[in-house]
């Protein structure tokens, strides 16, 4: 199984958004906190619908929240 190829900047974006907690983000996008933990650890590639909901929470386009492969660039933010 191993690490998934879809990475994300959720942890940084949460911090930038008034230090939003994992539980608050989970409640906003309709998943459990454990799923946010798995996403941040890179253990889970979200469905397209969940990815859009997360991006919408941060008011950012999808590609500024998620990346494919080894991308290590920081998100530009708003």
């Amino acid at each position, binding site marked *: 199984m191993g690490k998934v190829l879809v990475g994300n900047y959720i942890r940084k974006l949460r911090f930038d958004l008034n230090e939003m907690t994992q539980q608050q983000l989970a409640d906003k996008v309709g*998943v459990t906190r*454990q799923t946010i*933990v798995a996403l941040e650890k890179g*253990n*889970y590639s979200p469905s397209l619908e969940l990815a859009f909901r997360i991006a919408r929470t941060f008011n950012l386009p999808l590609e500024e929240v998620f990346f494919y492969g080894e991308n290590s660039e920081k998100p530009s933010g708003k």
Partner: protein
Amino acid sequence: MTYQEKKSIVSLISTLLIFTVYLLYRYPQYPNEVLDSKVTFHYWGSFILVLTLVSIAAHIVISIVFNIIFRMTTGEKEPAFADELDKRIDLLAFRNSFAMFVSGFLLAMGSLVIDQPLKVMFIVLIAAGFLSDVTGSISRLYYYRRGV
């Protein structure tokens, strides 16, 4: 360790405990001396039926007790719903569990083909049910820890 990981471990331990205790209680009651197949079928039928019912009831009770202990120790509430990650892991765990049971079922049928006693067929069938349950719990734990 997350709620789901702890729950998988509790489920695994309770499966092992329930099966072992039940086996130790029921297996000595096997009608060794009786040649009548009707009595033997009755024994195996009740063995599987009671095991299934006891297992379901025990799992429900253990799950409730686990949730109470989880709330008391962590101060957190257990997740109230299954989201897309939970459903995906459930599906993968069910696939593994089902594959294990089907393998055992085929093995049990194979034992009849090679003229093994009926007892062997039932033992293989029950072992397959037990192992499929264990496989499901281990798969859940594995996928929650390693990711999907």
